[in-house]
């Protein structure tokens, strides 16, 4: 046995050694090739005329990617991409990271999250409409003389095209553009009627030509007469052909009246097929579709109408959004019926999409041709899409970029694992990435400041604990629960410097967040018990009961083993047990937690919000909000929310938001827990860190100034 163990150890070490030599050999060969490659890279950079390298360090990283210490490629590490490189249809934030390099938006956010000019401008003006209502007219203009990466000029038509795709009835991406209160938007989105139906319903005598032209109308009725006659003729023929041999009064060829009579229609003597058709139209009260389906003797009316019909089915009765108007080649106006604090972002913080590329084959209600381009994007951004294979997106600098050709010739976006991100940067394989911030990572990076640097910014979202007000209807019980949540120790032990407890259910990255807000429900078990007693619970045999039932609360949490809020629940469960109540903690997989929460099957749940760009909370706390999973509504909250959306003045709005948040806290349905930080790390051996933006914030990072970023 002993001999065997020794032998095993020997064998294992031999195997290890063999593997090592094999790999080592391969490695050497590789670095030679890397060296060659590096030479040619250096040449390209010299041609570009921005040789900035004076790196004398000689580590393995550089050997791998070019022994001269010159880099012409920035490698960005991201988590798995879906490969949907279209601002219209992407779902993953990482796909969008690629999109932001390829596409350029009219306006951008500045470090403070405010909308500022980029390659265009937006401004708003109040106007009195004829009917006395106030309209909000946004004028969007773009710089003249810009081109897409393929050299085509950019005009306002491309912007309008972008709006029309977002507003399309068949649009299924993430944009909420179609829900905006733009004049005529609802008519456009909800009009499902094909044009032929609208014209036929309006009748021959119609004189309202807002949605279609007089020509179209005349042609339709003319063609309908021809087609209708042919339709009736088919019936007549069918009736005559279908007669039994030797019938008493056979219907003669051309006897429309007779044929119609046997089909069930009374016609005058000498009636034509057109009369027959008109009689049918009358009977069906103009419903041509049903008429065609029921009466047909072969061909449908649509077949006989031919081209006219196909055209008019493709077109809808509303083909334009009234409120979106072109002014000149570089300007358009968008008219809103009601004020909206984020309207400027909605109309101007959007990528300009080339109509000549995406628009070929686009018609209302049919976005197939736009979707076909999802894997081959073309825009006007700093970089041009080359390929996506082997998990790497290859981009090259756009020489036509309006702000000047970017200094780094190539960008590669590579998919990497979350756990490898830091090692990959330290190893020199990637240059920029965003690991989820942890104290360990910071320690690791602080020890190797020569290799990497990092920034920390607040995440535009927050973690919270929600209570379902339908399942826990008693305000006192909810308040009692709130007083049992001990947030500070949990968050500081989990996040350290990388997260903070927040006091109101809104992310502090928003300018409207009330920074002076104080704790609403402090941790206080005695107070909690008071509230429970006020709600009618009594202690009986060591149990907290009301009407014979013990106070039992079910809470759902995802991945509790690693969740920052777990200690809060653990302490809460202990406290409640000591009082004689029960907290049932359900650890669930995220999908299940989400289903249970949206389905209203949980008394309490632990979740987080992200993607906040404005202080509009109607979706979460409004009585009609789609994400109002706490199922609590209050007309006063609705009223103040409506007020906030109309308040363009910032200070005034801040006051209202603070007031709204206090009302929500008073309702005891949402306990804000933490605000965490996002991390970005940069490779100090390959990048010229002096060219990074001076200020990196939630809304502003290196990608906003990518054209001036330099490598070493």
């Amino acid at each position: 046995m002993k001999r065997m163990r020794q032998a095993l150890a020997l064998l294992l070490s031999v195997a290890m050694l063999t593997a090592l030599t094999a790999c080592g050999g391969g490695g050497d060969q590789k670095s030679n090739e890397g060296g060659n490659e590096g030479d040619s890279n250096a040449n390209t950079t010299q041609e570009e005329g921005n040789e900035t390298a004076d790196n004398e360090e000689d580590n393995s990283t550089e050997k791998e990617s070019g022994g001269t210490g010159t880099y012409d490629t920035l490698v960005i590490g991201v988590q798995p991409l879906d490969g949907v490189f279209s601002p219209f249809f992407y779902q993953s934030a990482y796909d969008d990271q690629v999109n932001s390099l390829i596409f350029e938006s009219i306006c951008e956010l500045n470090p403070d999250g405010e909308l500022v000019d980029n390659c265009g401008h937006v401004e708003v003006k109040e106007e009195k409409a004829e009917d006395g209502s106030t309209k909000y007219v946004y004028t969007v203009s773009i710089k003249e003389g810009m081109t897409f990466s393929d050299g085509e000029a950019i005009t306002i038509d491309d912007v309008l095209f972008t709006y029309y795709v977002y507003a399309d009835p068949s649009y299924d991406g993430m944009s909420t553009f179609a829900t905006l209160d733009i004049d005529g938007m609802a008519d456009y989105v909800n009009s499902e009627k094909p044009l032929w139906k609208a014209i036929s319903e309006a009748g021959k005598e119609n004189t309202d030509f807002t949605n279609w032209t007089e020509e179209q109308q005349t042609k339709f009725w003319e063609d309908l007469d021809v087609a209708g006659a042919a339709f009736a003729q088919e019936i007549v023929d069918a009736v005559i052909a279908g007669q039994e041999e030797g019938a008493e009064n056979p219907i003669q060829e051309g006897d429309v009246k007779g044929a119609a009579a046997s089909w069930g229609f009374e016609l005058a003597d000498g009636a034509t097929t057109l009369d027959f058709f008109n009689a049918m139209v009358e009977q069906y009260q103009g419903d041509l579709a049903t008429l065609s389906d029921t009466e047909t003797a072969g061909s449908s009316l649509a077949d006989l109408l031919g081209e006219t019909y196909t055209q008019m089915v493709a077109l809808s009765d509303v083909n334009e959004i009234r409120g979106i108007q072109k002014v000149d080649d570089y300007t358009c106006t968008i008219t809103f019926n009601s004020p909206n604090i984020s309207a400027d972002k909605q109309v101007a913080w959007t990528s300009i999409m080339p109509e000549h590329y995406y628009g070929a084959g686009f018609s209302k209600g049919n976005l197939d041709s736009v979707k076909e381009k999802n894997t081959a994007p073309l825009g006007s951004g700093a970089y041009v899409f080359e390929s996506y294979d082997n998990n790497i997106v290859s981009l090259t600098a756009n020489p036509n970029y309006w702000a000047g050709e970017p200094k780094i010739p190539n960008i590669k976006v590579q998919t990497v694992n979350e756990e490898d991100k830091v090692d990959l940067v330290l190893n020199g394989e990637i240059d920029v990435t965003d690991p989820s911030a942890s104290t360990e990572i910071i320690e690791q990076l602080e020890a190797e400041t020569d290799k990497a640097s990092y920034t920390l910014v607040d995440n535009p979202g927050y973690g919270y604990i929600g209570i379902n007000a339908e399942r826990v209807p008693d305000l006192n019980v909810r308040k009692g629960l709130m007083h049992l949540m001990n947030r500070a120790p949990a968050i500081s032990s989990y996040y350290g410097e990388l997260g903070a407890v927040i006091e109101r259910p809104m992310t502090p990255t928003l300018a409207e967040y009330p920074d002076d807000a104080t704790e609403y429900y402090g941790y206080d078990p005695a107070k909690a018990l008071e509230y429970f007693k006020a709600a009618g619970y009594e202690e009986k045999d060591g149990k907290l009961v009301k009407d014979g039932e013990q106070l039992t609360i079910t809470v759902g949490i995802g991945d509790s083993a690693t969740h920052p809020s777990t200690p809060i629940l653990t302490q809460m469960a202990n406290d409640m047990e000591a009082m004689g109540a029960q907290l049932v903690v359900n650890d669930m997989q995220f999908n299940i937690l989400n289903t249970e929460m949206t389905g209203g099957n949980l008394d309490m749940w632990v979740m987080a919000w992200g993607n906040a760009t404005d202080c509009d909370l109607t979706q979460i706390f409004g009585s009609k909000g789609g994400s109002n999973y706490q199922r609590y509504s209050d007309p006063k909250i609705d009223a103040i929310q409506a007020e906030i959306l109309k308040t363009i003045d910032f200070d005034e709005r801040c006051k209202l938001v603070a007031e709204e948040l206090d009302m929500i806290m008073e309702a005891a349905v949402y306990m804000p827990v933490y605000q965490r930080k996002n991390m970005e790390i940069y490779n100090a051996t390959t990048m010229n860190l002096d060219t990074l933006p001076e200020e990196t914030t939630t809304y502003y990072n290196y990608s906003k100034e990518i054209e001036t970023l330099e490598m070493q």
Partner: protein
Amino acid sequence: MKQYIIKRLLISILVLFGVSILLYGIAHMVPGDYVSNISSGNQNITPEMEQRMREAYGLDKGPVEGYISWLGDAIRGDFGTSFVYKEPVTSIIIKYMPATLALAGISMVLELLLAIPLGILAARRQYSFTDYTIVAIAIVGISLPSFFFAAVLKRVFAIGLGVLPISGMVTARANFTGFALFADMAKHFVLPVTVFVLTSMGSYLRYVRTNMLEVLSADYVRTARAKGLPERKVIAKHAFRNTLIPIVTLFGSMIPALFSGAVITESIFALEGLGNIALKAVYAGDIPYLMGFNMFIAALTLIGTLVSDVLYAVVDPRVRY
């Protein structure tokens, strides 16, 4: 034989049909659909938008209605468009297949090349030092969890020694082409293939060893030896060919494994292969992709079993269909 194959193929169609019902049912039972998965956490999504998206993705229909429309399209070869990737399911499978196939294919060849000779060697020297050593390695390989083994390899060779890349398929920074690209990819494959081979070689090895031992004690081997045949010939011609019979049946079951990918190994080394994206599809609720991919694997499994049955008849003259 021909008749037998045709009969089996016809039965396979029926089996596939049953499998598709089961798969569709399971895919629908997964809590949380695609729309709620992508919209949760995004406070800008309105209920109307969610409803419209459900209609667009066909998620507003019940499972029965959904299955019938899926089946109707699938019979015509249209497996639908993946929710996540927004591309036809078939083209996604084709796109991600090369990585998976290369990884699994190379590993499988290496596994067999190592397992068969080592298995024979171990059997010939049963209860010897060599035998114990080989079997010990096999058992260590079987017992090592791949994620742990992969993490150790990465730490040692990629992060510690820096001789191999940490993850991915090619070096992003370098624009390799031609042979350099091939060499670069080969280098990226060293660690994943090592994990694959060492963790799954063991079971084949033990299989070969057991069968070889059985054959070696058979009468005809003794006869061959008694005839005075050289040992090499006894092993190669008489013993090994008979060992092959049970081994070929393994080939059939290997076919689906070539394409199904190794979820853990692929994700640890950030290789976007079929296994990795199938896992992502499960989390996202991407029903069209899951259906398309699972049906593909189901069909391969059926083909695999058919192939092993046919091969059985080829290598064993006693088997007749």
